[in-house]
């Protein structure tokens, strides 16, 4: 089967800046794809190219097998949803949603049927007479979504659709949006900088960085098998140990860290003497009073305790002065550890991912600011 949307070697420049650099991407019919990346990665540019709001400098874009370069947006069968909804303020919900069908000159019955069906879909049937300013942000977002679907578009292009909303509300709306897309057999390309959102709604995630696709795969693949320091740092985050491979045997490798600390990793793909970075996710680091067999065990002192909605996050200082973070899901009966406590930090060699030391330095790969 042909992909529904396909980009072949797409490049877009703004003056001297290359916003997108030879992007190749295909999206299947019915797929929910998230484009995830930091500000300035080129996410919105990518979406606007598919929508037809921008033209690529090089490369081709295909929708339903047809080359759409230079095809105007309204003929691409795709609805672009802006961050700020862009509803008509002087029209009520019904008029906003039926706008597309009216423009397309469908007969009155069809216009009515489609409009009420779509409004039910987004659970706003009861608010059809309300004006945008009378609705909450979440509701306005749903009206915009309904308008996109009512126009007959099979492809939803969503640019930070929950960007302006309350964090707690986003959790509810994204689950709803995902079901809607799946139930209606639509295809969604959703741009976000929120990794949790991407992990929860996507069939596949494309990680975009500096105009290139860094990695593409299912949420599980991206999370459990990140191919780069950037990806593991951007999606989920991790602790990073700089070191040198000191030994490789049949069980794995030994890495010597600053201050003489040694850790074991299961990966055997590096050579002795190689400079590497070992990444361990915060949630894979357990804290306790005794050493765990078969694990890496390090001694540290709890420097800070933070409560992060449902989890406790501990900042721990190691003997070599390195700072580590451990995130532990709060189970009802557990008592949080306290600042100043000395703990044994354990993590399994299989939970350690090993990367080549980056040419531009570690900070450049993981720095957020």
């Amino acid at each position, binding site marked *: 089967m042909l992909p529904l949307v396909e980009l072949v070697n797409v490049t877009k420049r703004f003056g001297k800046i290359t916003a997108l650099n030879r992007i190749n991407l295909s999206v299947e019919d019915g797929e929910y794809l998230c484009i995830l990346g930091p500000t300035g990665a080129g996410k919105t540019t990518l979406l606007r190219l598919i929508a037809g709001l921008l033209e690529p400098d090089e490369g081709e874009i295909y929708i339903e097998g047809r080359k759409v370069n230079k095809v105007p947006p309204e003929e691409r069968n795709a609805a672009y949803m802006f961050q700020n909804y862009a509803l008509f303020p002087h029209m009520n919900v019904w008029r906003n949603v039926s706008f597309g069908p009216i423009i397309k000159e469908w007969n009155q019955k069809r216009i009515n049927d489609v409009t009420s069906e779509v409004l039910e879909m987004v659970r706003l049937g009861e608010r059809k007479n309300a004006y945008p300013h009378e609705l909450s942000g*979440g509701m306005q977002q749903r009206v915009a979504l309904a308008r996109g679907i009512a126009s007959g578009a099979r492809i939803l292009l969503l640019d930070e659709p929950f960007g302006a909303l309350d964090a707690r509300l986003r959790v509810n709306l994204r689950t709803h949006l995902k079901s809607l897309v799946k139930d209606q057999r639509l295809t969604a390309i959703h741009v976000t900088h929120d*990794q949790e959102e991407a992990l929860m709604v996507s069939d596949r995630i494309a990680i975009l960085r500096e105009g290139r696709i860094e990695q593409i795969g299912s949420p599980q693949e991206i999370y459990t098998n990140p191919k780069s320091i950037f990806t593991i740092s951007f999606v*989920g985050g991790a602790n990073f140990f700089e070191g040198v491979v000191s030994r490789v045997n049949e069980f794995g490798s030994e890495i010597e860290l600053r201050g003489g600390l040694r850790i074991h990793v299961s990966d055997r793909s590096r050579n002795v003497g190689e400079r590497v970075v070992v990444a361990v996710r915060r*949630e894979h680091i357990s804290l306790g009073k005794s050493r765990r067999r078969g694990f890496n065990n390090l001694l540290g002192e709890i420097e800070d305790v*933070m409560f992060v*909605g449902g989890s406790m996050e501990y900042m721990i200082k190691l003997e070599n002065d390195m700072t580590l973070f451990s995130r532990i899901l709060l189970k009802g009966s557990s008592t949080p550890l306290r600042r100043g406590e000395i703990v044994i930090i354990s993590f399994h060699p299989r*939970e350690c991912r090993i990367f080549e030391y980056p040419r531009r330095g570690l900070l450049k790969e993981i720095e957020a600011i």
Partner: protein
Amino acid sequence: MPEVRLVNVTKRYGRILANDHVNLTIRDGEYISVIGPSGCGKSTLIKSIAGIIEPDEGEIYIDGKIVNNIPIEDRGIGYVFQNIALFPHMNVWENITYGPDVKGFLPEETKTIAREMIEMIKVSARIDAYPDELSGGTQQKIAVARALMSRSSLMLLDEPLGALDLKVRSVLRYELRRIAKALGITVLHVTHDQEEAMSISDRIVVMRKGRIVESGKPLQLYMKPKNLFTANFVGEANFLVGKIEKVSEKGLLIDIGNGLKVFSTESKGNIGDRVVVAFRPEFVILKEKNDENAFFGEITRIVYSGSLVRITVETASGDEILIKNPLKFGEPPPETGEKLTFSIPPENVLVYPYPEAGLHKELSLE
């Protein structure tokens, strides 16, 4: 020292009560966050303290002095808002020293404080850079430093990280707290991000429809929220409707229909009361058959969210229960259609009177 006290502060916009008799005391050196759904009045509240909005009724005291009629520049506060407001034609140094210059501070003193601020926000290497050469996160740090230059010991932060990427925000929020605590200043921080509030505040104020619903320490609000709205707003929760069947010294036994019962260590309630039972998805324990509050169900949905797996289970009563569990290495992940036994520790079962307005309305975030 800067203690802020609001007494019956009320603000109307036409028929809408944006702030409805708000009473709040912010103690000296405290880091307070205000959260609540859009339109709850949190921005109106901070703007009233800043002096940008004049309340219709009530008094605002800073350091024991009533400030209702005192203009913003004379209230002795630093104010940082969401849209980064740096001067584009000035470099970092000029932006940071701008305030004190116009106020006529001694140049040498200005320089010393500015250097301290720059060191504190860790931008020493970029003092010659112009805003457009800096990332959004760095720009916002400079905005904070500039506000701190007023040497005011009260900072009002109105969605200071709102315009930034989540990744940047999760780093900067700790910086904000670190700076505030290092300088011993009092902070009121308005945010739409519950996690942000949870991780940096000494105390959180939850607002809804112009009123303060509840305030408390982050962990306390999360573990033992006093009302249903808070329980839902500060984190996800499962809600079941039931009736109190038995009251004992140990707690309450609640009938949730279809022969299913939940035990809670809570003590408030009478036999026959209609109640809502709430518990957090991460407190549910898997595979403990003999425990109290053990339930059985079929997995209807699995969603991975990175380190956690979100399992939706349908019980015999037709209720859907969300469970959050960490993904453990070497354990096979659960699958849709599988049967599952789970239990809820009684101390994590919260019980609330059934709300007059109905459950749906009470939990509504809009």
